[in-house]
């Protein structure tokens, strides 16, 4: 085990009593509880942590947080893999296993680093221009292998992800100084507060800056503030929870890493992550700021790090990343790094400041501490193959005397100023203002969002605390709570002063392809200049051409440097170029978290029929019919599906079968205007139907097209029962309500859907009556008393029953409806009663054959949105009906009255093909030999092999079909042609004798 040599003997927020071992690229290291993977690796002297996207340049951690663009690793293996994990965000746990990415054979010796030598030939747009011949597709495989980040996991995710909705009055995002103050103030008002923070611990910069608040150390103050918040039951604290998306009406999506910190050893019943959907009356964004890199040649070497990150590693993790440090800056905050390093015993070689001077507190402290300060100077290059060994320092402006020289060092801590984290604010639709002095974009302000702290460009602690408190009060008040004005916190930082920042965008005048702007996507200064030369001058085009800000880090360190450089090259002011619009997510979200538990059995809801358990026990297949689970067939032992379907179909033709049709729509319509209302809904005549009788009916839309067919029953005076098809059951209720409420609100009608109250058990076949007559019933089932298309209600085995003599098979058939809870018992009773008749259940597949033999339509399969009643042989009643109804006026449109319309016909296959049926979708053509002959004149819509007729049968729609019966046509499908005779669309019992049996 390598001995940690960069760990300080004391300090930091790590738990030295809990050492943890972990592995990186196979080697075992040690860290402590409280470390991140990055801090533990740096403590072990491991600084080369990744290879860049395109040139495979050696890279180390640039940051200590969410903005990390270099230190990407692949975590764990098998079902626990996470690619592109930012080592700076991975909490260390015992046994953690990580691997480097985008390198081969290893991160230390990466063969594709040779790309770096060719960098000048691989600028932006290189792919688009070079790989045009023979095609980009040809090259894509090679390029994808050479360039890239992590690989997608191969195994299924072994862990679970859950979702959670939440509501609050005030959502505070970010638990640094401003966020904590906002939460304290809002919570005090009694408002429901959620405080969310993306880090492992709440406190933000207070966890590692050497600040004091109200006379106590900042970290202590954080602890007491969190204690105070946790004690209030109107407060929810969510650490490890990143707000990633800001949507309309203050809907915030947040990803909580519930058990990531336990790794694969997390308990199985605990989700790995949880996606929160929070609806907040008011939102306080206290999202802080991210330090900006400086742009100079070779600013991407391992050992060039953001100054605040150096400070954070030092103070939070007790890791001295380097031993001899050059601090490069344009602002005061980097002087804190120099001060803290010196206090920890690390050599500060020099602070290299582009500014002439500053009278800020930290600058003055550095001066008194004897730290060497080179004003008017800039770092202009670095040396060192796999880590910085020296930094070149040169006068920044021409007026400064002095010459360039190399300073030996092993770490360059840079600060180019700070970028406020305005991402969520921008996602909310908010516009940004540019503050010239600091070179930053800040929120303009919106009425449902408060922003506080450094997201507003406030750099001093006292300002952040004050602004946070004010935002908390304002948010609570706006949400309708009484909140008192805050008492000012006594921050020791209140006496601090800061000198002005000098925004700089490049430190050397020469152009070079080694000045990195986007580290992760390998976009350099010269790439920006090239983009400008090629006229990509809109910031959104520029982003997409160069891919600046489009990688895992989403440009957290590169966006502003990129657009500012573009502005400089174009000779424009930065606000004229503007910032790109930020879009969700703020940071990458695991696909698993987005999917949540909605996978496998929970992918979408399932509906079960009342006899589901019986069907399931038969080991049959269930088909998805909408949400319904419907049995397709019931194979007996040793039977194939095809054999089962054939047996079931023949059973219904010859004996009797039992079918569950419970999803069939059932809608009661009541009221003195019910008949008149329904007469407008249906194409068929409604008032002429007598009580206790049933009528087939078509429903059209206002364009005249058939939307559904079904039956309706007259239950009593002003009382009807409609039975739309199963698929239309719910849609039809909506349609009835819509027409009633919008077109005919004066009708005295009540619409009452009862579909699932009644189970529908259908007995079909010539022996159906015999079976029914064996049951105890107060209904006369005889042919004379209960004819076809009649309805009876009564008691069957003592259970209230509604029985319709309708048929979708062409056989004698009873639809027996009973309250659903009695269905399974009645189902078993019917099977028992029918045993002597050889009864068995039949499924959807047999039903489809039976209805097709009879030529019964399936609306939506045999018709489409252009089919009118005349096309299926209902033209005369449609036109003759005296009363206006939905769709009637459209039937007179020329398009429906002229030309050779597609009309419903049957097809009888000529020439033997055994049991193979005509393909659904086959088109009728003149001839396959000529292009004009290939014109389609119609097509097959349903087809099967009829076991009863022992021949293939099909129906379809063909031009002028009714006048062409007897004609032979060629049916073309997938380069093959067969011949079929056009027939009437009914193959079985055309006289309907069996129906009326």
């Amino acid at each position, binding site marked *: 085990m390598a001995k940690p040599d960069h760990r300080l003997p004391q300090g930091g927020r790590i738990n030295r009593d809990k050492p943890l071992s972990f592995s990186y690229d196979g080697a075992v290291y040690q860290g402590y509880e409280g470390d991140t993977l990055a801090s533990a690796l740096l403590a072990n002297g491991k600084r080369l942590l990744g290879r860049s996207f395109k040139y495979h340049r050696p890279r180390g951690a640039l940051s200590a947080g969410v903005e990390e663009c270099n230190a990407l690793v692949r975590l764990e293996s098998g079902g626990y893999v996470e690619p592109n994990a930012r080592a700076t965000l991975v909490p260390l746990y015992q046994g953690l296993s990580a691997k480097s990415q985008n390198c081969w054979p290893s991160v230390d010796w990466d063969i594709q680093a040779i790309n770096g030598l060719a960098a000048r030939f691989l600028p932006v747009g290189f792919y688009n221009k070079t790989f045009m011949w023979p095609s980009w597709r040809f090259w894509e495989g090679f390029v994808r292998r050479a360039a890239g980040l992590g690989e997608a996991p191969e195994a299924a995710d072994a862990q679970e992800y859950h979702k959670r*909705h939440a509501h609050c009055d005030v959502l505070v995002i970010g638990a640094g100084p401003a966020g904590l103050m906002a939460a304290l103030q809002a919570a005090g008002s009694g408002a429901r507060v959620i405080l969310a923070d993306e880090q492992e611990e709440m406190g933000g910069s207070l966890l590692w800056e050497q600040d004091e608040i109200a006379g106590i150390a900042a970290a202590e103050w954080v602890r007491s503030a969190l204690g105070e918040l946790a004690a209030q039951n109107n407060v929810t604290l969510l650490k490890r929870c990143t707000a990633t998306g800001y949507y309309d009406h203050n809907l915030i999506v947040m990803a909580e890493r519930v058990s990531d*910190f336990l790794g694969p050893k997390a308990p199985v019943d605990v989700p790995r992550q949880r996606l929160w959907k929070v609806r907040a009356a008011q939102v306080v964004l206290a999202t802080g700021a991210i330090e900006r890199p400086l742009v100079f040649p070779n600013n991407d070497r391992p050992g060039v790090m953001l100054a605040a990150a150096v400070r954070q590693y030092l103070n939070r993790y007790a890791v001295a990343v380097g031993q001899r440090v050059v601090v490069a800056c344009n602002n005061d905050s980097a002087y804190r790094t120099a001060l803290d390093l010196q206090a920890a015993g690390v050599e500060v070689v020099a602070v290299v400041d582009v500014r002439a001077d500053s009278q800020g507190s930290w600058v003055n402290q550095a001066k008194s501490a004897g730290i060497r300060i080179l004003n008017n100077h800039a770092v202009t290059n670095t040396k060192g193959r796999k880590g910085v060994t020296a930094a070149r320092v040169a006068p920044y402006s021409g007026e400064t005397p002095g010459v360039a020289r190399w300073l030996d060092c092993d770490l360059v801590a840079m600060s180019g100023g700070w970028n406020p984290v305005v991402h969520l604010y921008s996602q909310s639709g908010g516009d940004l203002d540019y503050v010239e002095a600091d070179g930053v974009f800040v929120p303009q302000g919106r009425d449902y969002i408060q922003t506080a702290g450094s997201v507003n460009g406030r750099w001093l602690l006292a300002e952040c605390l004050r602004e946070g408190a004010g935002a908390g009060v304002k948010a609570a008040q706006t949400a309708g709570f009484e909140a008192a004005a805050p008492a000012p916190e006594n921050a020791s930082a209140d006496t601090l002063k800061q000198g002005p920042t000098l925004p700089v965008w490049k430190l050397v005048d020469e152009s070079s392809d080694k000045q990195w702007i986007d580290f992760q996507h390998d976009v350099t200064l010269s790439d920006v200049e090239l983009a400008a030369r090629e006229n990509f001058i809109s910031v959104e085009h520029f982003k997409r051409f160069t891919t600046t800000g489009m990688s895992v880090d989403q440009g957290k360190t590169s966006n502003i440097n990129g657009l500012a450089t573009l502005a400089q090259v174009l000779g424009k002011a930065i606000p004229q170029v503007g910032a790109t619009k930020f879009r969700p997510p703020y940071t990458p979200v695991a696909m698993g978290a987005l999917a949540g538990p909605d996978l496998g*059995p929970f992918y979408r809801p399932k*509906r079960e029929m*009342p006899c589901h358990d019986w069907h399931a026990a038969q080991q049959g297949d269930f088909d998805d019919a909408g949400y319904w689970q419907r049995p397709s067939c019931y194979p007996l032992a040793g039977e194939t599906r095809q054999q089962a379907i054939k047996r079931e179909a023949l059973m219904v033709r010859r004996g009797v079968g039992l079918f569950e049709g419970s999803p069939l729509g059932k809608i009661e319509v009541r009221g003195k205007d019910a008949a008149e209302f329904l007469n407008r809904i249906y194409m068929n005549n409604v008032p002429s139907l007598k009580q206790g009788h049933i009528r087939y009916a078509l429903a059209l839309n206002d364009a005249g097209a058939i939307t559904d067919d079904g039956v309706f029953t007259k239950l009593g005076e002003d009382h009807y029962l409609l039975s739309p098809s199963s698929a239309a059951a719910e849609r039809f209720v909506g349609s009835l309500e819509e027409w009633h409420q919008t077109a005919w609100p004066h009708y005295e009608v009540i619409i009452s859907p009862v579909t*699932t109250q009644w189970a529908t058990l259908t007995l079909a076949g010539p022996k159906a009556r015999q079976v029914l007559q064996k049951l105890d019933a107060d209904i006369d089932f005889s042919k004379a008393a209960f004819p076809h298309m009649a309805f009876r209600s009564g008691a069957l085995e003592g*259970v209230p029953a509604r029985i319709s003599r309708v048929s979708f098979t062409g056989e004698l058939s009873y639809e027996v409806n009973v309250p659903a*809870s009695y269905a399974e018992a009645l189902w078993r009773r019917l099977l028992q009663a029918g045993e002597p008749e050889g009864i068995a259940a039949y499924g959807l597949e047999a039903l489809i054959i039976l209805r097709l033999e009879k030529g019964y339509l399936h609306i939506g399969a045999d018709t489409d949105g252009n089919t009118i009643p005349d096309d299926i042989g209902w033209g005369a009643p449609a036109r003759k009906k005296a009363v206006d109804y939905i769709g009637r006026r459209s039937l007179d449109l020329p398009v429906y009255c002229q030309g050779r319309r597609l009309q419903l016909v049957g097809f009888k296959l000529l020439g033997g093909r055994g049991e193979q049926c005509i393909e659904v979708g086959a088109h009728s053509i003149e001839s396959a030999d000529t292009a004009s002959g290939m014109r389609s004149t119609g097509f097959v819509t349903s087809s099967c092999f009829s076991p009863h007729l022992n021949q293939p049968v099909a129906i379809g729609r063909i031009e002028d079909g009714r006048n062409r019966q007897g004609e032979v046509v060629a049916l073309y499908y997938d380069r093959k042609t067969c011949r079929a005779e056009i027939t009437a669309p009914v193959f079985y019992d055309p006289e309907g004798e069996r129906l009326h049996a």
Partner: protein
Amino acid sequence: MPDTVSTGLRRTSPLARYWQGADAARMSAGAVSVEELPFQGVIRLQRREATSAFMNSVADILGAEAPVDPNTCAGESPACLWAAPNEWLLVTAPDKDRALAIALQQRLDEALPGETVAVALLSDARAVLKISGAAARDLLAKGCSLDLDPGQFSYGKCAATLLEQVPVTLYPMANESAYCLMVDRSYAAFIWDWLAHAMREFGEAAKSPDGVSS
């Protein structure tokens, strides 16, 4: 229609596969439990216009006024839930539904001659679940986007909403941290399975020394 059903046929719950003998389906994990209230009576009452004559007649029959404010409910047995404009759901004890439905239809037809009133039995179309315990709200919040905070959704309120894409009717029960959830019979098993999966994280097995389930 007779007041009661007298049959040799046994009633089957849509959650029958989760029954233990004669005991209806139930499950719990830590601070939350879910139980089926089998065969509850459910009646839908609809009127085109809620005239005062109608409202008075309903109050006479039910012994309590039907609520007129959206998303509120009143009474215990039967509970009367506002479901839509001029539409209510009555929830009764098992086997009390038919007699009540018949009484409603007959007495309203008598009291309001020539007007249309629809009384529909939905007892077999609905499954009713009771979700209770300290974590009941947390469990529901995993699939329901309503604000279930007692300050917003207390006893006396009700809502038609979605739970994991499935339409449900939800209302807090009296004097307990419990909710009554009504779902279409056909979705009952799906919702039960979903709840069983969703509640696992509240159970003992999910508790670890690191307290992640807290």
